[in-house]
């Protein structure tokens, strides 16, 4: 059995690899395999998987990629993830990707779908729209048909039908994967010293490039190894990190927050891993089941409309309670409309619940961690010193 360090070293290799060697190797392992890239925040990976394709999470270039061409595509006031994603495309790193899905998250990612159509006319490109109406016969019906249209597009790409049975089987695999992901998050919430933020992040990030079966096996291995570890508990405060659901912070930032005295007991990184909050039924019409799960059992985030004003921000307050968190750190990418527009409303909800919070912004290539460390450290000290006063 590998140790946590060995598992995380493997995940770190995947994370560092801007050439997606693992996904390329998967594609080359059998003739006719296809890879479908997707951006944050959610796509129904079950349908892609059921077509024998690899869903590949594209989360920008992080701080490992020098952006040379991508900056020529965007004004200075637009966030970093689209420019590094363009860089990945222009430098040929995504040439092996057969299709790209751009989820409905903001206007920048939406427009990037059109840019991709112009840049890559031979690639299957789909803006993956989701309903903001959560009534079964309105948003649910619309979304089910959108899923069927996605399925038809993928079927055209692979040249064969994606059967209901295959989707049901994929639903089962992803249900299992979500259970495991939730188990990791639960472990970290109860014993955060056993599952440090950096490790959980890299483990979840591995799920962006590995087949779901491999990712689930990796999580199982990690959970067993983490339980066997004897790691000291530190006198850290417990915080929830909020606002990083699209452009990812550099790994150094995640480490810095923990080093500054904050255990991250929940976050919104890579929500695709935990988007659906209940198991999707594996019997019946699989498309209807996926649609129903989205409408009734999907996570709250800034990319979604909250129909009930009295519920706005409640999910965060509830997460604070459920995770026994002592505060919230709003860490959003610069120029991220969804996160930054949502923040004042979430902050209001926290204030009403007397939950302390701080805010800062980052870019995926932010290099200076000292200010973050100082801010997070001061926040942790404040909670520790004055939190129970």
């Amino acid at each position: 059995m590998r140790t946590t360090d060995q598992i995380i070293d493997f995940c770190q290799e995947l994370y560092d690899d801007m050439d997606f060697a693992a996904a390329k190797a998967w594609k080359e392992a059998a003739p006719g395999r296809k890879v479908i890239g997707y951006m944050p925040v959610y796509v129904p990976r079950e349908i892609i998987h059921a077509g024998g394709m690899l869903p590949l999470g594209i989360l920008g270039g992080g701080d490992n990629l020098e952006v040379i061409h991508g900056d020529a595509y965007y004004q200075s006031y637009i966030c970093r993830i689209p420019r590094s994603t363009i860089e990945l495309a222009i430098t040929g790193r995504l040439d092996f990707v057969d299709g790209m899905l751009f989820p409905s998250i903001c206007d920048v990612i939406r427009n990037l779908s059109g840019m991709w159509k112009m840049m890559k006319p031979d690639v299957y490109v789909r803006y993956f729209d989701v309903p903001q109406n959560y009534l079964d016969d309105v948003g649910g019906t619309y979304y089910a048909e959108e899923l069927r249209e996605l399925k038809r597009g993928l079927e055209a790409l692979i040249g064969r039908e994606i059967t209901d049975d295959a989707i049901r089987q994929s639903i089962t695999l992803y249900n299992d994967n979500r259970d495991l992901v939730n188990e990791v998050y639960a472990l970290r919430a109860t014993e955060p010293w056993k599952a440090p933020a950096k490790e959980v992040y890299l483990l979840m990030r591995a799920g962006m490039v590995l087949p779901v079966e491999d990712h689930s096996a990796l999580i199982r291995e990690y959970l067993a190894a983490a339980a066997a570890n004897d790691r000291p508990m530190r006198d850290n405060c417990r915080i929830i990190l909020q606002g990083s659901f699209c452009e990812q912070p550099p790994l150094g930032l995640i480490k810095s927050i923990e080093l500054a005295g904050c255990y991250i007991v929940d976050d919104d990184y890579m929500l695709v891993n935990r988007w659906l909050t209940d198991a999707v039924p594996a019997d019946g019409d699989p498309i209807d089941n996926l649609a129903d799960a989205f409408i009734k059992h999907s996570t709250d985030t800034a990319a979604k409309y909250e129909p009930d004003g009295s519920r706005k921000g409640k999910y965060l307050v509830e997460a604070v309670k459920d995770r026994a968190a002592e505060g919230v750190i709003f860490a959003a990418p610069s120029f991220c409309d969804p996160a930054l527009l949502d923040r004042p409303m979430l902050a209001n909800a926290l204030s009403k619940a007397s939950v302390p919070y701080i805010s800062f912004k980052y870019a995926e290539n932010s290099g200076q961690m000292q200010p973050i460390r100082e801010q997070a450290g001061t926040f942790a000290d404040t909670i520790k010193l004055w939190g129970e006063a």
Partner: protein
Amino acid sequence: MSTQSQNVTSDDGVVKEASMLKQKAMIADNYEKLTSAPETGAKVAATYVPGNLNELIMCFDMLNNLPEINAIQNGMRKKSGAMITDAEKMGHSEDVCTYVKADIGNMAKGSIAPNGKPLPVPDLLLLSYTGCFTFMKWFELLRDQYGCRTTMLHVPYAADGNTTQNMRDYVVKQLKEDVIPALEEVSGVKFDIDRLREHLRHSAAAEDDVVWVLESGKNLPSPIDAYFGGVYYIGPIFTAFRGTEAAVDYYRLLRGEIEDRIAKELGPVTPDGEPVEEKYRLVVEGPPNWTSFRDFWKMFSDEGAVVVASTYTKVGGVYDYDGFRHDPNNPLESLADYCLGCYTNRNLPTRVDMIEKYMDDFQADGFLVNSIKSCNSFSAGQLMMMREIETRTGKPAAFIETDLVDPRYFSPANVKNRLESYFQMIEQKRRGGGPAKAA
């Protein structure tokens, strides 16, 4: 009588034609109705320009209050800067849309309308959000402040360059099951589809004249400026007047003025009133800056640059490109098609195709992007659009950066320098320099 003799200088320093004055009176009248709503008992719906359902709102005897228009009014009156900084002090990020912050800041100051009276708390926030993600969050923020009833119309994005039956069905179903019941409950007025048909008939009539007006830019010289003048021309059809007889009358008057100018071979009226001697014919993409609107316009008119077509005049509805008209025979479906077809709800390849067509049809010399810091819906992808248009048409393209209503992001010297350099590029191109049109 010449239309020129009817021009007067208004209090914002811009010389205005009779149609502009009529429009100004219409807008003032609407603000008067809005601000007197507490006394008259009229119900108010707050909604947005792109995808607004004005005909439907009028079926319930409700008034239409548009937060973007309030922000524009405050921008042109140079009041938005303080409102934005107030909103930032309240915790709103410096990175986000300044329409939103001007609106929030205005609320903190008592939501004062241009007539100096407070705007009422809306009875309904009607979130018909089309082509812009920020709208959705904006209304959540307003709901947080007002605590009033909110209903949403989610309009899917036309990502593949066309709309599907699924999209149309989704919008119509929301109208039937969410929006109309909410309007009925708030107003106490029962929905009458024949009343909606009548409004849609007025819309279609006005839209015919809107298209005629915008296409008059094809004349040599162009009798209109389709950007700076254009924002006046689109005022009624984009706001609280689509579907009214007043809008039909306004566009008839405007059309008459323009016919007069075509007959006299006059260029567009400038901020100073004198017709421009047309030297450069431009197509412009993106919204204008409002805080220095007159100065910005003069940077063009002083150089003889006339905007013959613009995309901003399509943000509240596209009537020219594929001939859409509101259809009284298919009222709800027609409202759905209208919402789905607004400019920023169309994908980038379609936007490029539209601009290319404008470049050819309007015999433009060049393509200019006014990139707006606040508006990712417009701005994300504009640099690629610019290169694509340059490649397809062989005409020089250029790029300037400003903002909607945040005066901190309007740098006059910088914008002027860039424009002057750009006009030199056009001259150079005319002399045979620069890139050729792609084969």
